[in-house]
């Protein structure tokens, strides 16, 4: 458990690393034309397709489905031996403005409100055109997932941090696998080969600078860069890079944000590395906002990855309060965006405590016994017991809880502006449940620049012909901070855009 302050590092280590990193990146970008950094055209191609998709997450599978449906002979390459990337292990939450469920629960929403929330959390760093496309397509995405893939959503609307209103739907199975598994099945029905253990090592570019295909390693065994047999695969219409983010790549993420060294754990699968992004940058794609890397504030240090401990925190942020055990007081709006909460928790220098009572825990009833058994959540009879356990100043903690309860009753949080959920009750009925929050690296907002057709843009602002990108590998949609459940949304929106446009080329 990382109890030390995040910034307590030797200065030389940071500056040395950053200078070296900047040098490496700059060296790559200034190496001249994109031809110089790509693979030369082969004498012959080992295989030919219309569209080659890289990655089997939300963006890759959505792109491949739509490319094939638009008539393109499509193949999907996945470097890991298991398909799905981060998407198949995610929490299954997807944002939707104006869903049927919101209507059922009388929640008023609009694409404009979603857009405003995204830009506010993004600190205005979002590309105005791209963010609008995502905000306006959210209902379409839900309808498409239901009609084409049979995805089912639970009968509830979750309120996640940074959203003005509850708008996140949860897949019935509780993870993104609820989309990925049917998507893989759909690809099989459509006759699109999905090949695992195939690493795209570089792009094949002709003299005119058009991406003509990819060089792959077939039989690749991550992370052995030399494994597999080299082949050249033609992509007559386009290559769609949906290779995900680099959250697990400590070296690359630490270059972008020195606070995120090896001592900060990560929610991602081990394949979330920077290789694909680096190849795109070597080709001359414009990097956008690479240092904006999100850590999930709901990370529970008592478990690996994102488990039921993190789920407790996530629910808890809606219904309860979070305190710094050193002071017994709140220190942030529990429903602020992830960046604000994660930075606030990191700033305390230690694990913080989300707390609910027996009323607030009801929405988590399914998991609570298991969570208690695992020790990721603790149960206490009284608030005083909590104060004793964590050595919190009792009078300050008691006064804080009373103040919080007054805010709940008045439906207005005068201290931190937390939007109090409808029908919320004060935290006063024992037993009480305490979670543990210390952020974990989660998502890379930055990536390569794309236009509204998911085409990759080079450093001079020109489209790189034959090259598309979608999902976490792109940058500019989320800006400084991605709202929870918006990745699922963004990936499908731009995955489908990429698939359709590549097929039409």
């Amino acid at each position, binding site marked *: 458990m990382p109890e030390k302050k995040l910034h307590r590092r030797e200065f030389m280590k940071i500056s040395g690393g950053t200078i070296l990193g900047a040098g490496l990146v700059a060296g790559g970008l200034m190496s001249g034309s994109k031809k110089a950094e790509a693979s030369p055209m082969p004498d012959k191609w080992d295989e030919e397709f219309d569209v080659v998709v890289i990655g089997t997450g939300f963006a890759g599978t959505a792109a491949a489905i739509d490319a094939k449906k638009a008539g393109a002979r499509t193949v999907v390459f996945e470097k890991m031996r298991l398909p799905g990337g981060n998407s198949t292990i995610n929490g299954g939450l997807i944002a939707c403005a104006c869903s049927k469920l919101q209507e059922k629960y009388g929640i008023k929403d609009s694409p404009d409100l979603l857009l405003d929330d995204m830009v506010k959390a993004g600190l205005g760093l979002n590309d105005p055109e791209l963010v609008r496309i995502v905000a306006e397509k959210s209902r379409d995405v839900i309808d498409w997932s239901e009609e084409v893939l049979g995805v089912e959503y639970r009968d509830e609307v979750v309120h996640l941090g940074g959203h003005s209103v509850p708008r996140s739907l949860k897949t019935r199975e509780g993870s993104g696998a609820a989309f990925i598994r049917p998507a893989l099945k759909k690809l099989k029905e459509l006759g699109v080969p999905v090949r695992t253990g195939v690493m795209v090592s570089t792009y094949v570019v002709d003299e005119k600078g058009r991406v003509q295909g990819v060089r792959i390693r077939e039989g690749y*065994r991550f992370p052995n860069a030399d494994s597999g047999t080299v082949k050249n695969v033609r992509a007559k219409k386009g290559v769609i890079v949906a290779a995900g983010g680099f959250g697990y790549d400590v070296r690359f993420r630490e270059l972008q944000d020195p606070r995120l060294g090896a001592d900060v754990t990560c929610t991602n699968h081990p394949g979330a590395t920077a290789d694909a992004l680096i190849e795109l940058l070597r080709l001359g794609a414009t990097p956008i906002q690479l240092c904006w890397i999100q850590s999930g504030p709901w990370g529970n240090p008592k478990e690996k990855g994102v488990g039921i401990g993190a789920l407790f925190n996530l629910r808890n942020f809606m219904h309860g309060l979070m305190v710094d055990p050193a002071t017994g007081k709140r220190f942030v709006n529990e429903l602020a965006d992830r960046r604000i909460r994660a930075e606030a928790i990191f700033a305390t220098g230690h694990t913080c405590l989300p707390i609910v009572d027996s009323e607030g825990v009801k929405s988590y009833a399914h998991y609570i016994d298991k969570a208690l058994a695992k020790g990721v959540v603790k149960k206490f009879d009284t608030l005083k017991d909590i104060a004793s356990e964590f050595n919190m100043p009792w009078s300050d903690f008691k006064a804080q809880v009373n103040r919080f309860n007054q805010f709940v009753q008045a439906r207005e949080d005068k201290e931190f502006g937390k939007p109090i959920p409808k029908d919320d009750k004060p935290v006063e009925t024992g037993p009480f449940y305490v979670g543990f929050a210390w952020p974990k690296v989660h998502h890379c907002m930055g990536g390569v620049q794309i236009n509204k057709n998911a085409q990759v843009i080079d450093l001079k602002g020109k489209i790189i012909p034959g090259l598309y990108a979608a999902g976490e590998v792109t940058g500019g949609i989320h800006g400084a901070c991605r709202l929870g459940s918006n990745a699922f949304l963004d990936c499908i929106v731009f995955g489908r855009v990429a698939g359709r446009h590549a097929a039409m080329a």
Partner: protein
Amino acid sequence: MKQGDAVLRHPLLMGKRMLHFKTRYLVTAFLVILSFPALGPAADTAKAKRTEGAQFRDCAACHGARAVLPPGHVSLTGDQNTDCDSCHGKEKNSLRGKIPLGHVHLAGEVTCMDCHDKKPFAFVATDRCRECHGEPREVAALTRSDEAFNPHESPHYGNDMECDMCHHLHVRSENVCGDCHDLEAPTP
């Protein structure tokens, strides 16, 4: 295999090959052998040669002169028909997940060349595992239990997991689900 020999017919033990009784006994015993905790940390097998003609009990063929058994361990060569089960049959002495599965296969007379076809030893696809152990969904049916965690059936990956992601023959096996989840699964 004889009819009604339910335990020994279990694919996790030995797959579908016909084996002599004595060998089946040895394999059963040996599988439970994977229980002796002392063997785990005692041996450094990182540099073991993978000798194609290696036989079960002939440790030196791959490990050379290096002692791989813990001090005081009964000799595996020689005249005694060592009954592994008498020490390792107990659950608390289980070596499950502590030594590479190659040893279990050798004990079951599944040799290197049975899987690797030819030298040089290329990586073997898990189609080979399936020939003896059945399809992933068949294995999943065997490990289904009320405990909720079925290591062969993942909500994230369905039955797509390749056997050797967890089950390693030449190094210790691992529990890949445990990378994210706190799920107990001693992995043979």
